[in-house]
């Protein structure tokens, strides 16, 4: 300061130069206009724009983070729901398998029982049939044997029972006749 004042004093003494501490009126006016231009253009117009942009950037970054957090939360919830569903499904499947096994065993047992009953029934029916057939055959045989015996006895009595050869011939002839009869009967029936 004192240096400056001294310099100003020297300048004043020399007389030819203005005091540097005294402003020029024209420079004051020019400086005011210049400063006003800078304040209006930079301060009033441009700085608010960058402030707005900086705010938007902060919003964008914070918003992005928040959205990412939300999405992560949602994904976590979904995953848990899926896990829960999967566990339920596994549980259900196990239960169903168990049931199916039980049912299968039951069905097999029932089937076996039925089959056994059926088999028994068939066997019984066959037995009955056989018995009936036998009875029928017996009756038929009895009737035929009766008639045949009477016929045979008649022949034997009709011929003289002289020798055994004759006897056997008679028997043989009778049997052959019998066979013949049977064959013709078959031919007629077929």
């Amino acid at each position: 300061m004192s240096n400056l004042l001294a310099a100003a004093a020297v300048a004043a003494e020399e007389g030819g130069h203005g005091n540097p501490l005294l402003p020029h009126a024209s420079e004051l006016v020019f400086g005011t206009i210049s400063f006003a231009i800078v304040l209006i253009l930079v301060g009033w117009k441009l700085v608010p724009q960058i402030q707005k942009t900086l705010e938007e950037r902060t919003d964008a970054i914070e918003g992005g983070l928040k959205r990412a957090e939300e999405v992560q939360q949602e994904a976590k919830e979904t995953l848990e729901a899926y896990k829960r569903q999967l566990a339920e499904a596994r549980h259900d499947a196990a239960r169903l398998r168990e049931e199916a096994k039980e049912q299968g065993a039951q069905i097999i047992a029932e089937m076996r029982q039925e089959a056994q009953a059926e088999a028994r029934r068939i066997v019984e029916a066959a037995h009955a049939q056989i018995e009936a057939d036998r009875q029928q055959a017996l009756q038929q045989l009895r009737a035929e044997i009766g008639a045949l015996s009477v016929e045979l006895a008649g022949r034997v009595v009709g011929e003289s029972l002289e020798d055994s050869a004759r006897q056997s011939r008679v028997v043989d002839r009778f049997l052959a006749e019998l066979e013949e009869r049977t064959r013709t009967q078959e031919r007629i029936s077929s």
Partner: protein
Amino acid sequence: MIARQLLAAEGGNEFQAPGTEIFDWGPLWDGAPSWLTKPTLIVALSVIIVCGFFWAAFSKPKLVPRGVQNIGEVGYLFVRDQVARPMIGKDGDKWMPFLLSTFFFILVMNLMGVIPVLQLPAPSHIAFAIVPAAVVYVLMVFLSIKHQGLGGWFKNMMFPPGLPAWLYIILAPIELLSTVILRPFTHAVRLFANMFAGHLLIAFFASVGYWFLIEKLTPLGSGLGVLGFVMSVVMTGFEIFVQALQAFIFTLLAASYIGGALHPDH
């Protein structure tokens, strides 16, 4: 240029140190209007540079910054985080339009002192320091009365609470003098004097170098000439630092005055 002026002025064989006459600039050419001088041309250039730069940076701001916008944002964040918020507080962002404009306008005007050919810091003419200082002063008075009331302002200023009563006898007039009367003066003169002295120093060493190495080259004087040359380079580097620092301090004080007006309790 300076040395030539000196030669023309003195015409002698003696080295003459440059004085305050190096701050006197007439009209740019014969017949030019009297206000159109080198200092006003430099101020006009500063206006164009500051407006052009911020127009390029901020006129179409992108969410993802590219190129000049990055540099502009670095400047904006510097002023906001180093000046506006520490000095004013949370509502400091509202004063960024004023503070950013002031900081860069003064910074560019100061740096004109080391731009080749121009080489004159505009605030070495006190008018260009008075204008922004006066705007800050008017703002401070207006905001103080608006936020504290006229009586409240003087009460907060002269009688800050929590001091022994007798101290107010000394404190009150000192505070009144320093805040209302000296503040605008020191605010303007701090900037002006630094730019004035810095320019004078560079001019002195440069003319020593020019005189002893080119005008009057002698075996004895050449050493002095080299010293002058080296010192003018060193001082130019130092002046870049001072110019940036003074722009910063000017803006810091402006923010501090505004902050004090808005929040007197701090």
